[in-house]
């Protein structure tokens, strides 16, 4: 499909500004393909195009946004006028006007491509259908106790152009495939559901480099089967070893959201904590637009949707809170550098402060020593989902856990949730392993709009509440 808009078209719109503090025009053309097989049948197949141009202005200290899927000069001009008009309406009511935006020292120009091995455009849809069908079928045939399987291949291919009145003129091609298998095991009315898969920023070969589609199928069914015979855990506050996926969830949900600067301005518990010790000195926690420590993290972006380079932002360094996550507005407010966290999901969404790849840096201990040095506790694996609260309380679900007694991994137990107060849990971290993995790339973070993010880390040991049946 031909490009609908070019940098020059957007530059021309941005140059139409008169009294605006700032104008931004973002073109985004998104191709989505999805295949799902469930229980031997094709449940869903779709291919879709969503393209348009979003225009945002800052005028009289207020933000206005409009968008259009009509690429004529007059329609683009109308969208600009609309954005300007609604900003002026807001100016009549809004109390605290936006005072300014943090400067971009070197406006970004040029082309940015996701590094891919195996361009998804070159992989025929037939192949995508085939592997999804095969994996679903394999997972179901694993055992007669596997009663239901669902397998999904999903890909998002974006072409974006970002032009703004501060001189940014950037073009990006992003590629985000994901693959997952969910197996349901059943015995005597009891059911266990397990999902395995991977979501990345990269290409076809990257997606299946570590494990192929059948590996995920077998893993999901094997785990579901094993968990059928596992017991539920009783609730207790104890020593917990978190796997990299769970560490990613902690980093994202319990800390990351607390340091999003828009939330800080609403009164987050981190408000007055910059420079203070908030975690064990073994903890260095980062949100990065780059795929640090390992390749193909799903939340990787070269620049954010305000044209700021999406670099590595250290949130907590050796236990001390160092930085919030900013867009240009909050960076100006706090007198900080913008961190490249302003992200929009589609052309008709406005950029919001969102995370990218959020992780805890690896430490020096060996995972095996971590187990050896645990008298009583649990190894918690397979992040499901989670939420954190204004006061730092969080809760995450996980798929499976193992009891640890006297330095040895013992019994497999059913998944449950862990909870605690974010900073208390981080202060309790006493061991950080030297391994590293990103593992929450199949999920989306929701904050009015979805965002593709990732998270990970090494195994870490801490204290938290495991919740189960009484």
């Amino acid at each position, binding site marked *: 499909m031909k490009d609908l808009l070019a940098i020059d078209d957007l530059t021309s719109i941005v140059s139409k500004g008169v009294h605006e503090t700032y104008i931004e025009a973002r073109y985004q053309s998104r191709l989505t393909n999805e295949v799902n097989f469930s229980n031997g049948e094709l449940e869903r197949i779709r*291919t879709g195009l*969503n393209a348009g141009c979003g225009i945002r202005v800052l005028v009289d200290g207020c933000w206005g946004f409009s968008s259009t899927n009509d690429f004529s000069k007059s329609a683009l001009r109308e969208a600009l006028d609309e954005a300007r008009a609604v900003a002026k*309406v807001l100016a009549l009511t809004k109390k605290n006007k936006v005072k300014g935006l943090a400067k971009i020292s070197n406006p970004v120009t040029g082309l940015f491509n996701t590094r891919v091995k195996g361009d998804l455009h070159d992989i025929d849809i*037939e192949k995508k259908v085939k592997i999804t069908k095969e994996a679903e079928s394999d997972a179901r045939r694993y055992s007669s106790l596997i009663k239901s399987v669902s397998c999904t291949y999903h890909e998002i291919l974006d072409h974006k152009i970002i032009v703004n009145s501060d001189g940014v003129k950037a073009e990006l091609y992003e590629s985000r495939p994901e693959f997952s298998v969910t197996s349901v095991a059943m015995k005597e009315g009891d059911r266990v559901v397990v999902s395995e898969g991977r979501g990345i920023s990269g290409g076809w070969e990257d997606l299946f480099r570590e494990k192929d589609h059948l590996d995920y199928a077998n893993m999901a069914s094997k785990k579901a089967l094993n968990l059928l015979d596992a017991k539920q855990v009783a*609730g207790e506050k104890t020593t917990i070893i978190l796997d990299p996926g769970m560490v990613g969830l902690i980093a994202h949900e319990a800390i990351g959201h607390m340091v999003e600067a828009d939330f800080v*301005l*609403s009164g987050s518990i981190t408000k007055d904590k910059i420079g203070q010790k908030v975690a064990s000195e073994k903890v260095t926690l980062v949100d990065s637009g780059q795929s640090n420590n390992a390749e193909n993290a799903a939340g990787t972006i070269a620049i954010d949707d305000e044209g700021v380079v999406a670099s590595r932002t250290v949130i907590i360094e050796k236990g001390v809170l160092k930085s919030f996550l900013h867009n240009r507005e909050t960076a100006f407010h706090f007198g900080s550098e913008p961190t490249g966290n302003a992200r929009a999901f589609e052309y008709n969404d406005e950029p919001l402060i969102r995370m990218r790849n959020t992780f805890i840096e690896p430490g020096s201990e060996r995972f095996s020593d971590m187990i050896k040095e645990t008298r009583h506790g649990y190894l918690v694996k397979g992040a499901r989902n989670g939420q954190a609260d204004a*006061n730092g309380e969080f809760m995450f679900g996980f798929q499976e856990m193992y009891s640890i007694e006297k330095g040895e991994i013992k019994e497999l137990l059913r998944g449950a949730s862990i909870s605690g107060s974010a900073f208390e849990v981080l202060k309790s971290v006493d061991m950080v392993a030297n391994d590293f993995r990103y593992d929450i790339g199949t999920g989306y973070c929701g904050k009015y709009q979805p965002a593709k993010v990732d998270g990970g880390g090494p195994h870490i040991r801490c204290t938290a509440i495991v919740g189960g*049946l009484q």
Partner: protein
Amino acid sequence: MCTFALREAEKADVDEAEVYAISNKESEVFIESNDLKQAKSHKTDGLGIRVFSKNSLGFASTNLFDKDYIRNAVKSAIKLAKITPSDRFNSLPDKSTRINLLNGLHDKKASSFDTSDSAELAEDMLMAARSFDSRVSVDSGNFTSSLVTHALLNSKGIRRQETVSSFFWSIMGMAINSNGVSNFDYQSTGVHHIKDIDVISTGKSFAKSLVNTLDSKKIDSFKGEILLTPVAAAELVQDAIAHSINSYAVQKDASQFKDKIGESVSSDLVTVEDDATNVKGLAASSFDREGIAHKRNVIIERGVLRKFIYNTYTAKKAETQTTGNAAGSANSPPTVSTTNFIIKPGKSKLESLISEIKKGIIINRFSGNVNPVNGDFSGVVKGGRYVKDGNITYATKEVMMAGNIFKALKDVTGISKEKRILTDSILPYLRIDNISFTGG
């Protein structure tokens, strides 16, 4: 444009074709950090084409309505239908009799409602919350007006179109005092008519519920009753039931309600309906994603499971009729979903439900996981208040709860008269016994 798309598909070598399009004119004002944040106004479109060729499915969508893009989408859909497996249950619904569009979903004045109105109402809601109590901090919120036109055409002669106006508002935040920060609370609701908009009540009730949860204390573990607010009921109960009555889940053997039609699945206090024709509900519309007229479906009647919800595909498989629950946007082929999920209000007043609790917790929100397949849930009580001998004592913190939702449905001991309209449901307060609470 829908007619053009259908004609293009019919020209090609397909057996059946369907076109669904949505256009949404939307204006929205966002609240952030106790102030208005941004105003937004635009129109978005989507058009989806579903084709069947020798019982194989193809689907493509586009938001660009130029003829070239429509032709291209039709081609893509046909290409997919050539490579997907054949499935004898793949078919479109036959043309049914003319349907009457519901009254009460389109406020003619909605087209003149503009961003300045949204801004004023967002500000009113914010002020209502902040002036109720200065300890309230609003993290985010919004006021949105939307005018949606959706249309469906298929090669069997179904032609439908309707316009629905909606006004939604939401508010989220916390209360802060010298002892700390409360849990988040969240409220949202909406109406179809401008005259029914009441953002002040939402702002006040949000603030009241928040300040009640300040100065929270840890409690010891116990087993007792829970009183769920409508929002908490949506989080804990609605999804599990909605999943279990969905014919896709039933046919996949992933529903606890499979083979239980006619059996008791909950306390006889519980009656559940799915009713897109309830025009108070925000998911109301005259026809479903396949053009089938919506109707009221009684799902659970005084504790007894009466029916599942179907679209044409799952109904054909189960040798029954669709219930008008084909769902989804123009960007994907129809699935099955509830519309307005309604738990019928009970006879008790909220205050009497509370006064009867010996030992329990009132919760504003449930933050956790509910496994809709086996019903196990585990998570954290949010905005909890401890009730002892009928009296609300203090707010709780760090309380986890776990159990099984299908067992809990049988332990429902009370349903309030009072109800709330949420995004896709109308729910009362529910009181449930035998819940395990784990203190921190």
